[in-house]
């Protein structure tokens, strides 16, 4: 799980919210690429423009006309991948976290686990599947870039190796440290958060709202459960050994007690049942 990140060979998306005008060309390109149905106002959507099973990426407008493109963060150590009990979600070496609906059993633990609240479910369907951005894995393998970054008319969201993207992000924030948030010493969102993500942001507004909590920390999320889960084999053997030991000890003590009682009161017949039960 905790492999060293090979930034040179894994791909990433860098979104610079200062360049985004909120035109939604990325959303349109994504919907075209995956043939997604038009958005509808279902009960489970409080906002039709939010991420949904028909919208893998979307633009969220923050107060003051700041447009932030939301999509799957493609964490380097994804919580969803570690949560999935059938391996329907996989982190590919190229960077994308992809989903295989043939394996999925629909438990929705990935949706519970994601620190950014990304996976969406096709609730309206009687045969529902999980839907989320897969960073155009097929296009990346063909040597193309994802549909969204290709479509952006302003270069607000760009694609490249993670190393290139980090270099570019550092170049931008060092050139204009007062333009980016936190002003003075800007942060690259996703550089270290939850162990690093393959979708990076630099922004002129606080992007903490993207996660479930303002501070997600730099620790990879899967480590939290792995700490408990790794104890399973020793605990299993320990419990089994302990129970066998207790059974043997108590059985022997009762046996000895009986023998003693037999010796003490030879003609007793009231104790003979005890050994049976």
């Amino acid at each position, binding site marked *: *799980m905790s492999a060293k990140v090979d930034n040179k060979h894994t791909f990433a998306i860098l979104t610079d919210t200062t360049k985004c*005008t*909120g*035109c*939604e060309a990325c959303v*349109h390109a994504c919907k075209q690429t995956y043939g997604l149905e*038009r958005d*509808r*106002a*279902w*009960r*489970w959507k*409080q906002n039709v423009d939010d991420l*949904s099973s028909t919208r893998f990426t979307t*633009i969220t*407008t923050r107060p003051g*006309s700041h447009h932030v493109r939301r999509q799957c963060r493609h964490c380097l150590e994804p919580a969803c991948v570690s*949560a999935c*009990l*059938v391996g329907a979600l996989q982190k590919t070496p190229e960077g994308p976290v992809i989903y295989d609906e043939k394996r*999925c*059993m*629909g*438990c*929705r*633990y990935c*949706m*519970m686990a994601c*620190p950014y*609240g990304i996976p*969406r*479910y096709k*609730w*309206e*369907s009687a*045969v*529902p*599947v999980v839907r989320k951005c897969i960073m155009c894995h097929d296009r990346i393998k063909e040597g193309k870039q994802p549909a969204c970054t290709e479509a952006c*008319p*302003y270069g607000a969201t760009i694609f490249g190796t993670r190393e290139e993207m980090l270099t570019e992000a550092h170049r931008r924030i060092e050139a204009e440290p007062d333009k980016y948030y936190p002003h003075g010493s800007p942060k690259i969102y996703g550089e270290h958060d939850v162990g690093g993500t393959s979708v990076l942001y630099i922004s002129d507004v606080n992007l903490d709202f993207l*996660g*479930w*909590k303002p501070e*997600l920390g730099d620790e990879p999320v*899967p480590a939290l*459960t792995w*700490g*408990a*889960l790794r104890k*399973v084999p020793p*605990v*299993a053997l320990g*419990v089994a050994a302990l*129970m066998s030991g*207790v*059974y043997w000890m108590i059985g022997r003590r*009762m046996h000895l007690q009986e023998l003693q009682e037999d010796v003490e009161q030879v003609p007793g017949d009231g104790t003979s049942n*005890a050994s*049976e*039960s």
Partner: protein
Amino acid sequence: MLNKCQVMALQMPRRVDVHTNSPNLALERVKNVLWAVMGVWAVVTVARFANGLGATSALTDAVPWGFWIAFDVMAGVALAAGGFVIAAAVYIFGLNRYHQFTRPAILTALLGYLAVAVGLLYDLGLPWHIWHPMIMPQHHSVLFEVAMCVMLYLTVLSLEFSPAILEHPLFHRPFFQKLLHVIKKVTIPLVIAGIMLSCLHQSSLGSLFLIQPFRLHPLWYSPIMWILYLVSAIGLGLMMVTLESLLSAWLFGHPVRTDLLAGLGKMASFVLSVYVLLRVGDLWYRDKLLQALDGSWLAGLFLFEILFSAVVPATLLAFPRVRHSIAGLATCSTMVVLGIIGYRFDTCIIAFARPKDMPYFPTWIELAVSAGVVAGAVLVFIFFNENLRIIDHGETTAPSEYDAAKAKRAPYTFTPAMRRHSLCFVVAAAAAIGLLPREAIYGPEPRPTPVAHSRQVEALAIDREPPLRRAFHLSSMSGSVPASADADPVVVTMIDGNRNWRFVAFTHDAHAQALGGRESCRICHHQNMTFDQNTACYQCHRDMYEITDTFDHLLHVEKLGENGSCAVCHRTEDRAKSRESSLACWQCHGDMVVEGSMIQSTEAGLTGFAPGYMDAMHGLCIRCHENLSETQPEVYGTEFGRCDVCHREFKDTDHRRLAPYVPMPPGHVMLSNAEKTATQGSE
């Protein structure tokens, strides 16, 4: 080894006693209620699997785990903990005086886990993939461990319980008796395996939440959640066995063995005290204890939960007088059972963060599914109690010889009790069908998103190169507009049908001018409301996303003269009276159609359906923009069809300044206003 009396079989099934000799009224009433619940359950089952989760549950993307997981799985597994606790006490720790509780406890556990499995089938999106963990293991997932343990433990429980079934006269054949002998030989390994598997998955259910420290409230989230889950499950298991023997004593009329139950109460008191100490100690150790006193409602819930589920009952049970009285035992066990179920609900749903505007309350269908699963389990429990020897009454019966003739099933007859049960089932099912919400029958339907009218605002426009051509400064008419810029004051139409602040600034006048002045209206305005000449887009395209039916049948019937008037529109006698076979709107309302429009939905297509506002706007604008980028690229640029030509950033949009521009009630109240706007715009 097992008690000698357990080897012996029952001579006569108890059911005969119940129905013929001494009808047990309480039991019969309970059964009627249970069968009624099963009737409702049958109906909601069909609805759930036919129309999916969205139509029948209140689950959302923000609350992917709801009542089914919290109750059927989390609470269900915990309630079934009595099986391994009692088995451990009796078989491993040699506390033989509790032997009479083993079978009921193991049966409860078996039925509990079956209920968990069945309940899970409802919750899983693709329940026919439930076997996937076995062939596609992903061992980094806690849920994988839970799934495997539950599967294995179900097998162990079936084997542990199988002697009770094999003792029945029906199985008095050499093969089954040999099988029984073998199973009894491996009782101890089975019990040890059961304890091991139980410890693992009871604790792992707590580990499931370790992955979400960001959403679970700090009073519930803890690195030792898995220990808390295990210890609380043991306490709950003991109390569940107590409550269950009190209940079955009431139902079947056995004497209550308070002396034995007091022993269980004492154990539970100890276990629950350990649970409280661990939980509070962990919070204290991690400096979170003071959060319990911060006055928030979740802090209050935490205090109530821990007092109700553990502190109060553990204290009460510490007094011998309380734990030796039926009332005391009943009170304490009920508190613990409800309280620890509450603990599971809190971690799973209530203390699990979600957006404020996405509250979760289960639908009655969710509740009915869970109630049905429980009712089914209880009915099986009662059936086994009537036909097998589950509860040891102390009397020993002589083992009966196998009699092939007797074992053959008597011809089936409907007893009055069966008739009552069937009646309850059918009546309840009928009532449930009547109560089913529309969506559960016809499948989920999208909610309406009424379109609000557009609004005209003043702005400053600065020329830009194609394809954008102009930039708009909406509210700050001075200040942030660059002094060097040559800014034109213009009036733009803010198009924001669903009032989400993501609007398009539409320069109506500039468009009219470019398309040819007053004569150009008809190019876009393709249709009017009846008796109107200035119909705005939103008046027909009334929903943001969904198709609107603009034809009012009721109004037409009323105006044309009630029942006698059908033939006014439905003129073809040989065809069914439908929209297709009747007159088209324009045949009476000639003023609806605007001649020479770009939009083709005029005469032939005029059947009274208007596409969603967004589709209509996109359909109208994009086609023209794309054409222009091809035919006149030197004026408009080659990318004039790009999204951001219309959807763009608006400089200095000041929400407060535009305060009147807030969501308004949709519909025709604003008609006069809109008419004014439309007239202004066209001039």
